[in-house]
């Protein structure tokens, strides 16, 4: 393979990596704001499945992508509402509640999805998600094709990542949210509504996980298959740690993990015999390395929110 075709092949790979990273990005952004509120919701996989099945089902019925995406967000945030009620109001264990949500969500998706197997997304919905080249930006050699020649949901995910970054680091409310995740008692004393913040961000986080699921069933695949998320919810949980609870870094991290997801496929062309199963380990290994290095360096910036996983009871103070 000569240099020019190698570059073209690499661009093709990177373009596919962005697409493969998009469902991860949505879920990661969702879990990031959830965990920033101090709640570890391990139900990502379940919420993605609920979003995927609701989006697909409503896409079939209404043939309208907006209804489909709304349904996906609503379904998944309904799941996260159960989690929020259990962990915030009833103070249940977060890990167990999250795992239960994954079982529940997988059950819902399996039950409804049984009648959807093999169905494909209607053309009127599909048409909405064709790649659109962005004028000017899309013409930059290399980068234009890789980043700016995609469907509308990918552009939305860029904007969302940047918007959430600004929200988290440059607004009053974002500061409050971080305070709730770091030290809820102090936040409470400062007059911040701890429970309200937790509820809002768990629900919004759920909605984003739902969007990630719907991206899989409506755009990425786009047909219904059993267990359509195939563990991507768990990769998103890893990714949140990898990007240190930072939406900006999530943008890059998701494309990196998305690239790893499809790397084996693209390496076949070079006769490089690396098992995809070994490559599939890499996201988790690098995540562990990040986790270990942050704890060794005691870096405050990249550490988990201090109160992550710890329930907050005002009465117990």
């Amino acid at each position, binding site marked *: 393979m000569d240099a020019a075709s190698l570059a073209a092949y690499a661009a093709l790979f990177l373009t596919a990596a962005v697409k493969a990273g998009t469902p991860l990005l949505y879920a990661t952004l969702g879990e990031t704001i959830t965990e920033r509120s101090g709640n*570890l919701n*391990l139900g990502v996989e379940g919420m993605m499945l609920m979003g995927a099945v609701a989006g697909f089902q409503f896409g079939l019925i209404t043939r309208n992508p907006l209804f489909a995406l709304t349904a996906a967000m609503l379904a998944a945030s309904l799941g996260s509402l*159960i989690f929020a*009620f*259990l962990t915030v109001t*009833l*103070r*249940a*264990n977060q*890990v*167990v*509640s999250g*795992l*239960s*949500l*994954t*079982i*529940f*969500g*997988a*059950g*819902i*998706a*399996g*039950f409804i*999805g*049984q009648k959807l197997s093999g169905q494909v997304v209607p053309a009127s919905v599909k048409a909405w998600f064709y790649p659109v080249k962005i004028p000017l930006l899309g013409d930059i050699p290399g980068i234009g094709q890789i980043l700016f020649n995609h469907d509308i949901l990918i552009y939305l995910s860029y904007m969302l990542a940047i918007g959430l970054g600004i929200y988290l680091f440059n607004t009053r409310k974002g500061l409050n949210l971080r305070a709730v995740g770091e030290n809820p008692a102090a936040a409470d004393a400062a007059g911040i509504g701890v429970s309200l913040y937790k509820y809002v961000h768990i629900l919004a986080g759920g909605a984003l996980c739902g969007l990630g699921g719907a991206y899989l069933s409506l755009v990425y695949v786009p047909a219904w298959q059993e267990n359509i998320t195939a*563990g991507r919810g*768990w990769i998103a*949980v*890893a990714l949140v*740690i990898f990007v240190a609870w930072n939406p900006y870094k999530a943008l890059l991290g998701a494309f990196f993990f998305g690239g790893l997801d499809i790397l084996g496929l693209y390496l076949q062309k070079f006769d490089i015999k690396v*098992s995809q*199963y*070994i490559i*599939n*380990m890499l996201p*988790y*290994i690098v*995540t*562990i390395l990040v*986790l*270990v290095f942050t*704890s*060794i360096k005691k870096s405050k910036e990249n550490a*988990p929110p201090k109160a*992550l*996983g710890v329930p907050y*009871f005002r*009465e117990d103070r």
Partner: protein
Amino acid sequence: MLRISKRTDLTKKQYIQLRLAAVIMALFTSGIFILIMGQNPAAIYFAMLQGAFGSFYGLRETIIMTIPLVITSLGISTAFKMKFWNIGAEGQIYMGAFAASYFALNHHDMPKPFLLLVMAAASIAGGGLWALIPGFFKARFGTNETLFTLMMNYIAIKWITYLQYGPWKDPNAKGFPIIAAFKETAILPGFMGIHIGLIIALALVALMHIFMYHTKKGYEISVIGESENTARYAGMNVKKIIVAAILLSGGLCGLAGMIQASGVHGTLSVDVSGGIGYTAIITTWLGQLSPALIMLVSFLFAALVQGGSYIQTVFQIPQAAASILQGMILFFVLGSEFFIQYKINFKKEGI
């Protein structure tokens, strides 16, 4: 106005009533869902009971499913007692099964009792070491163990997948990605279709009960869970106890992996655990870290799963319906915990 305060006056009867109420509410809520989906909930519940307990075959399957749940939960409870949130049981099961399988596949000419003992020891070491990696970093650097152990699960599963599709693939399987079946010497003996793991599980429940409540070491573990500083002040070697307890925790999970591979599946595969490690977290928590309660909860949970697979074959209702019911029961039982721990006082405004 609502005031919430800690509850200290709960009787055993009230406790059981609260739990039962939670399950009944879960059955009711799921029933509405099943009704909307056009099925008769009463018939489905009855069929699930029948599937889990109604025949010798069903009861046997329920018991076989209970065994790894109990052993894994006992392992998890050891870590949870120390407030080491080990959610890596799934990976520890796989690594235990992997270590045992290495001997089963390569040294099957050893005498059977000896081979089985070697496999058990290997599985305990495999699971224990897999848990020790996050344990070491937790003890040394304070690395978050919940997230670490969770990541370790996926590495273990990918590793087994790699073996199954790669170097350990059976060349005689006509291209199917499976690992060769264990020879007879590596299969756990049994009686009436139930492998000897049942006895191991029952013995472990008794041993763990004694260990946790009636030995110095067991007591030390719970002291560390309450407060590491207290333990240090009392002169305990905290780091050493933590390491030993984590090895025990992972080791028991690993043993469950060996039992599944040798007693149930007859070989190593990516289905050897199939989520037992996660379900066991739930049963451990609901069993309140008490060995006897864990055994009861595991049995009930196994019945739910077995009943679920029965309705699939009889009613052609997808097994997913059972997952919905599982999730629903968990939600309500988790919710009921609040009413066990706290009481709500209604007070007039202005006091």
